[in-house]
């Protein structure tokens, strides 16, 4: 009987998050982080609101953000673990990183439900 472990599940979330970050983030940062704030393009607000509040967009955004949060949490956890090299900080680091991802995920759920 194969043992059940949480670590492989966290790794799957990390991998999924890595894929969506790699594919979606470049254009999202270009568009919403740079082009729109700098005024290079100006999408109509009502159109944006319509797109974001569409049920499929809500679902996709939720999925993307949750995966990206867990991707970052997992990678940062290992980086801190390897960088700080203090065994007694291992548990606090895990709680901090995955905890923050969990809190962010709940917040994202609330945001996409009420947009």
């Amino acid at each position, binding site marked *: *009987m*194969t043992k059940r472990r949480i670590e492989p599940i966290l790794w799957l979330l990390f991998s999924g*998050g*890595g*894929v969506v*970050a*790699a*594919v*979606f*983030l*470049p*254009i*999202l*940062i*270009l*568009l*919403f*982080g*740079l082009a*729109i*704030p*700098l*005024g290079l*393009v100006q*999408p109509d*607000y*009502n*159109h*944006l*609101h319509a*797109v*974001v*509040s569409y049920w499929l967009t809500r679902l996709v*955004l939720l999925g*993307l*953000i949750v995966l*990206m*949060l867990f*991707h*970052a*949490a997992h*990678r*940062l956890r*290992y*980086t801190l673990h390897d*960088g700080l*090299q203090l065994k007694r900080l291992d548990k606090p680091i895990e709680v901090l990183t995955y905890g923050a991802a969990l809190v*962010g995920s709940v*917040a*994202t759920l609330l*945001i*996409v439900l*009420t*947009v």
Partner: protein
Amino acid sequence: MSAPTTYRQPLSRLWWLKKRTYFMFVLRELSSIFVAWFAVFLMIMIFAIGRGEESYRNFMNWAGSPVVILINVVALAFVILHTVTWFALTPQAMVVRGPGSRQVPAMKEVSVAGRRMTAATVVRVGGRMPAGLVIASQYVGLAVVSAFIVWLVLR
């Protein structure tokens, strides 16, 4: 005679600065900070869109301030590093099989009612897609997704 003492080589806390490959690895890992940053940025932006046009405009004014623009430029650089390294490593990390692969019989350990035994099964062999093709198709996917999002937002 007592056992001679082996010497434990110490590992420097700055081990990641010793080789260029180690340094690039740590940079790659730190890109996750900016993935988290932009995930939160998106969360706040979606929230602002939900609260009405004025709050969206306020958000974009804040996003247009020099500090935030600078952070997002750096974030974009790190995210591109993430994308390039992630795509490059995919063919190494997983086997993508094309039409040339086929199934052959093999043995596999299974549990039946808690007892371990071997059973016949099939595995897929051969037909591995060359690395270049795997990497190229990911970039195609990136282009398609990017084009779609631009169309979706700016039409």
